[in-house]
């Protein structure tokens, strides 16, 4: 039995790293969190609870969900705390209904979220597409388990990466992020809500079962230290307002149901008025912008954490819980004399394409451990474009990698590159 080293206590706080970075994105429309939703203090929470606390701190006040392991603790936390802060939780009849209700809830201006795991995520895809087409800000938490189908309900997986990106039909862009610890589950959930408000997209929050169920210290700052982006409501009059007019901005201005704008919105291809138009031209303007608003702002959205990549022979690309496991593997490889760096993806979609291209041009090899049989590694390979070998370390789920296996692949990669 291998002796596992204690996990390092100096995991960076994404909130600290990124604080201030997004300020000014919308001309300074950043406000402080509502204290009613912020449980300030040091807590001992699992990732699911921390995610729920992050949502409440971000101002989420409507959650519709359907129970599924291993995500259920998020809504259990929320359903206990919502009644004392003016929020509504409803347990819907299924995931299709949950996601539809979240899209409806968000059109009232109320920040809305749903929580699920792989099989439920599949059922939500129809209305995730609707949210993308209607440009509805919302957060979809997916605590991943092993699949396909019912798979491994209580055990870890990271195999919904491609589903998060391409799960619904048609062309659209979403944002997906993946925390590595309960602390990040808290910090990044706030970020997920903020990004969904800025870009008016559903944001996929890809946890995994281990982050969801691991219990660690979580520091929840005072409300005045949490920056929240509120729904930017239009100031136009009813006569001037068109629900999908952009005026050079990445997203249109928002009017919520009940404010007298009497707008129309549809999942059909639509013009600036929100009216269906069945033509190739309208499809081009309508759908192209759904893609452009993300792809034009990749540098603003993408987030990663890098370590010792300057003179690295091998770089390990990780995300979620795999990043924590790979730390041990990297230490093992370093003890064997390999110059190995690390790139941890915090935002998975849009992909950190630029940085990976740069790294591929100067390192000998890239190693991608992930708890699936090869999903994100394809994207890394695409970006590497043959400039360096890309080695997957695949694991079907049910547990995390054995760090020694990752270390072995790193050593092989280094030997081959030398």
């Amino acid at each position, binding site marked *: 039995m291998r002796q596992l080293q204690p996990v390092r206590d100096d995991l960076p706080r994404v909130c600290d790293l990124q604080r201030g970075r997004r300020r000014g994105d919308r001309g300074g429309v950043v*406000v402080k969190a*509502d204290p*009613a939703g912020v449980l300030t203090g040091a807590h001992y929470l699992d990732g699911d609870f921390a995610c729920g606390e992050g949502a409440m701190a971000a*101002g989420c*006040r*409507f959650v*519709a969900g359907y129970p599924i392991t291993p995500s259920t603790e998020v809504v259990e936390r929320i359903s206990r705390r919502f*009644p*004392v*802060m*003016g*929020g*509504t939780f*409803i347990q*819907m*009849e*299924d995931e*299709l*209904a*949950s996601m*539809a*209700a*979240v*899209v*409806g*809830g*968000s*059109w*009232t*201006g*109320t*920040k*809305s979220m749903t929580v699920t795991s792989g099989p439920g995520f599949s059922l939500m895809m*129809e*209305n995730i*597409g*609707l949210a993308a087409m209607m440009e509805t800000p919302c957060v979809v938490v997916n605590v991943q388990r092993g699949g396909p189908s019912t798979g491994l309900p209580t055990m870890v997986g990271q195999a919904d990466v491609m589903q998060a990106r391409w799960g619904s039909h048609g062309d659209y862009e979403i944002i997906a992020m993946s925390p590595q610890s309960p602390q990040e589950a808290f910090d990044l959930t706030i970020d997920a809500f903020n990004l969904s408000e800025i870009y008016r997209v559903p944001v996929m929050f890809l946890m995994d079962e281990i982050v969801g169920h691991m219990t660690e210290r979580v520091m929840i700052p005072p409300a005045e230290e949490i920056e*929240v982006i*509120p*729904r930017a409501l239009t100031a136009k009059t009813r006569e001037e307002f068109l629900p999908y007019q952009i005026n050079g901005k990445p997203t249109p201005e928002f009017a*919520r*149901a*009940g*404010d*007298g*704008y*009497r*707008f*129309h*919105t*549809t*999942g*059909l291809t639509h013009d600036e008025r929100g*009216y*269906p138009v069945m033509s190739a031209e309208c499809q081009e303007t309508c759908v192209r912008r759904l893609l452009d608003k993300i792809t034009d702002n990749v540098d603003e959205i993408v987030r990663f954490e890098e370590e010792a990549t300057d003179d690295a022979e091998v770089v390990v690309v990780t995300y979620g819980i795999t990043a924590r496991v790979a730390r041990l593997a990297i230490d093992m490889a370093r003890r064997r004399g390999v110059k190995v760096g690390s790139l941890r993806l915090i935002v998975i979609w849009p992909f950190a394409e630029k940085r990976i291209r740069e790294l591929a041009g100067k390192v000998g090899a890239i190693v991608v451990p992930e708890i699936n049989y090869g999903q994100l590694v394809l994207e890394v390979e695409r970006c590497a474009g043959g400039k360096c070998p890309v080695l997957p370390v695949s694991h079907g789920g049910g547990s995390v990698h054995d760090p020694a296996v990752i270390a072995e692949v790193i050593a092989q990669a280094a030997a081959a590159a030398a």
Partner: protein
Amino acid sequence: MSENKVGTRTDFPPTPPEFLPDAVSEHPPEHPVTPYLRMERIPHVWCPGCGIGTVVKCFASALERSGADLDKVSVVSGIGCSGRAAGYLKLDGFHTTHGRAIPFATGLKLGRPELEVAVFSGDGDLSGIGGNHFIHAARRNMDLLVILINNFIYGMTGGQNAPTTPLTAKSSTMPFGNFEEPFNIPHLAASCGAPYVARWTCLHIRRLTWAIEEALDRKGFRLIEVIAPCPTLYSRLNKLGTGLNGMRFYHDNAEIRHGADTRELDIDFQKSITCGKFVDEQKPTFLDRMDEHYGRVLGDKYVPMPVEGGWLQ
């Protein structure tokens, strides 16, 4: 319980008067429901003889009569012919995914409790793909007005069998006649606890308008089923003639029985259609129950979602 059978008229349709009253002037007066419609979207997609437009007109008239604050009325539709209604009404309108109009509307209602949320969709959308949402919204007594237009068939996709297609009626996927037991929609709603259940045909424009007006004044899950002709598909496949023939059929075969036992409301192929108001009772809605329960259990600590929604800053 009143019983009132519609008499059979032999002079239907009535002979038009010899002189039309100054109808053809250069500036015809605006139709009374024009302010409720997105006139720039007209002409609509519905076929000649279709009943959906009539129901939209009844809905608009009912809104006018009810004096509802139109800024606070949202209309949610699913997919299909009836699903296009949200696109023609000048209200906050949401044209959503197939079968999910009710859960979408649930989100709107819970996100901003002050809204009057109406779901306007078809039988396939609400009772087929959306059947599960329908029964659960009725069970919860979610505060929604649901107008279900039943033309016995999937119209927009080409006349396939619906969960409401009567036995022996033909559809494009039951070319030898339907052998599946159809839904009795009012009974389905009533048995799940809906506090307001009515059925009319789109010939009954005044009664339907009154029913919608009355339902707008109620709370909870209110279901109005409207039987409407689909001349292009249902009538053609079943050799039932034009939209006008459909109206004649309703005229001769609609029987008004208020308070009828919902178990007896099955619709057989080309047999009588029982119309009327079957259930009208007061029951606490989902939000009433939630507020009452949390208020009792949590006391002063309970903070209900503000009526204007949970948008805080």
